């Protein structure tokens, strides 16, 4: 029976005495209970955050309470099992993909060794096929005839508290990066299975604070950090002062300006935290250089959408905010900054959730006249598409020597690479802004890129070790190009990446600095009338 194969995948045998006790499996995977200890789980949602969210329209987050994964008693609602099984039934009904993914895996194992969590831990339950099996086993038990008749023999098992704990452990050891799906002959997307696991867990009040607090903040003030409109604008004003000091160029961005041609939305991390700030300076300079008619919004002040890591309804609501703001301001289309998962939401879910955005126009660059047919449905263009088009049409002047301190390599962020196919534009831009850059090995880039290890709201400090081991495959490839070519900069187009790769590099390859692509563009940009100082480190130079 096929299920036996899964066991085989997970088994490893050792004989003889060893100093290394305690990590050799003696039981099949289903019988090894999970053990929560400091460092292997993210903190649970604060009850007040959950209560606030539950009080909001269009979403439901019941069963707020204090609880600790390390305790035996998770203080689950009395009828928790019924809630979960009904929740699963409801989702099988609503999402055809879930039903297909539950039924069509042949357990070929092609995905097993492709997940960075498995590669960093050697834990069989981090093999995508087993991660899915955590849910599939319950599905079989309650929703298939074979499971009902044959039980364990058909790979079915009853939903128990132990299983629920397993779900919580492994739904939060998956960054929904979708690398596994690239290798699956059936295109099974384990990320979507993880999304379902997380949704089901939310039904019984089990979630993590690092996801829910940003979600609550975004719902309230428009961005992850809970920045007020004043603070948001204030931060950008500071950046404008810095730009003037460095380059002599005065930039005057506008906010919430009705009638602007374009609305610009980027992750709030670009506005408040290093190293995103330098990327943000890059955008500001670029828009100034081409005289773009655009506005920021202090309400749609977040490109990120942690709803994607939470629930369908939450994702829809946060995404809807961007389009509502575009409508309110009466812009023609939306230009989006360097974010990862914002683009996944926009490309894969927006149109069915909140579309069609027919009050907007098909994006057309006012500088080059290029019409972005690819964004016909979403009306949203990626900053790299926009910049590459400017370069192609000779609309900006770039001086590579201003990046002479940079020996770059390129990290394809999971979401932009796998969910929207943004592979060539960043490379084209890199060719024009730095003298030389090097690719990492073939099986670690483009569609096969390795995740930073901290996506989907796992970028919290209490699980630092988990993040470091999950990020090892990425870091390992960076180390290779660092040693071989002297690479000292790792470029990317994702705000989470910029923050988490910085920490990852600190641990694994401290010689490498992480930067945004628009930062490198900003460094190289030649602007009329500028009075640029000697900037040895580009926009990062302290003057």
């Amino acid at each position, binding site marked *: 029976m096929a299920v036996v194969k899964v066991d085989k*995948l997970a088994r490893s045998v050792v004989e003889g005495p060893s100093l290394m006790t305690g990590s050799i499996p003696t039981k099949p995977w289903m019988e090894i209970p999970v053990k929560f200890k400091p460092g292997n789980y993210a903190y649970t949602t604060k009850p007040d955050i959950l209560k606030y969210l539950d009080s909001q329209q269009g979403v439901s987050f019941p069963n707020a309470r204090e609880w600790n994964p390390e305790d035996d008693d998770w203080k689950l609602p009395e009828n928790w099992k019924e809630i979960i099984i009904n929740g699963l039934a409801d989702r099988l009904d609503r999402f055809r993909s879930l039903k297909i993914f539950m039924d069509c895996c042949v357990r070929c194992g092609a995905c097993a060794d492709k997940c960075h969590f498995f590669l960093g831990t050697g834990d069989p339950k981090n093999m995508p096929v087993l991660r899915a099996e955590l849910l599939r086993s319950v599905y079989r038990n309650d929703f298939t005839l074979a499971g009902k008749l044959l039980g364990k023999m058909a790979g079915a098992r009853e939903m128990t508290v132990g299983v629920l704990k397993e779900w919580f452990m492994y739904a939060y050891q998956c960054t929904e990066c979708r690398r596994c799906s690239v290798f699956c002959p059936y295109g099974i997307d384990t990320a979507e299975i993880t999304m379902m696991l997380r949704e089901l867990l939310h039904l019984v009040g089990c979630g993590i604070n690092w996801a829910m607090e940003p979600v609550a903040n975004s719902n309230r003030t428009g961005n992850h950090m809970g920045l007020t409109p004043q603070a948001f604008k204030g931060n950008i004003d500071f950046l404008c002062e810095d730009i003037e000091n460095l380059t002599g160029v005065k930039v005057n961005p506008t906010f919430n300006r009705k009638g602007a041609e374009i609305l610009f939305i980027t992750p709030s991390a670009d506005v408040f935290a290093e190293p995103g700030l330098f990327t943000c300076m890059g955008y500001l300079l670029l828009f100034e250089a081409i005289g773009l008619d655009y506005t920021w919004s202090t309400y749609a002040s977040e490109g990120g959408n942690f709803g994607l890591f939470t629930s369908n309804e939450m994702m829809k609501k946060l995404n809807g905010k961007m389009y509502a703001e575009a409508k309110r301001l009466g812009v023609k289309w939306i230009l989006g900054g360097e974010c990862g998962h914002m683009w996944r939401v926009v490309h894969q879910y927006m149109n069915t959730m909140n579309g069609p955005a027919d009050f907007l126009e098909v994006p057309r660059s006012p500088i080059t006249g290029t019409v972005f047919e690819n964004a016909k449905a979403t009306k949203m263009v990626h900053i790299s598409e926009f910049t590459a088009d400017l370069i192609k049409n000779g609309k900006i002047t770039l001086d590579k020597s201003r990046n002479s301190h940079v020996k770059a390599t390129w990290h394809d962020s999971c979401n932009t690479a796998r969910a929207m196919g943004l592979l060539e534009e960043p490379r084209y831009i890199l060719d024009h802004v730095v003298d030389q850059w090097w690719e990492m090995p073939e099986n670690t880039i483009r569609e096969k890129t390795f995740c930073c290890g901290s996506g989907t709201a796992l970028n919290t400090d209490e699980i630092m070790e988990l993040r470091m081991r999950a990020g090892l495959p990425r870091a390992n490839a960076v180390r290779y190009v660092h040693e071989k070519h002297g690479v000292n900069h790792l470029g990317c187009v994702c705000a989470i990446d910029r923050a988490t790769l910085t920490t990852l590099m600190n641990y694994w390859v401290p010689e490498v600095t992480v930067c945004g692509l628009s930062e490198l563009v900003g460094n190289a940009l030649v602007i009329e009338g500028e009075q640029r100082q000697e900037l040895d480190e580009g926009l990062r130079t302290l003057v």
Partner: protein
Amino acid sequence: MNLIETLKSKRKQILSTWVDRTLDSYVSSGFFKRSRDKFANPVGVNIREGLSSLFDLLLSKAPREEYLAPLDQVIRIRAVQEFTPAQAVAPILELKWVVRQVLSADKNTRHLLSELDSFDCDIDRAALAAFDMYTACREQLYENRIRELKSGSYILTDSGCPSSLARRGIQDKPPVH
């Protein structure tokens, strides 16, 4: 053949046992042992490379500085996995056990077992260096945690900005349902 020459001649056997045993400390180790692609299998290949170089350096009586790099290749990984400190550095000490197994399995080399003292000492030195390294890695982890905490979100979400005050207001109210 003296001890060092014998160990050199049995290099392949020793390394294969040593690497396998080290990789057996992972719950599911089949792939780690099998795949030789460094980028597809970073744990398996780095540990294999690190232990192999370490073995050669121990045989050539290299100074401490030289075996720091291969040790780092092994320990930096194990320092962030779910091992106790002892389990993380144990593979280095296990070389003693492996060498004894291999020498005693061959009647022509059994007599060398009594000459292992000095080689054992070298292994001990490497293990102590590994322990230093493990501690340094752990410290780096905590430093990184602190750096993240200081650099961003907490300052903005937990200090007295208006939105966090608003949140506190919500907290004080009775639960809304």
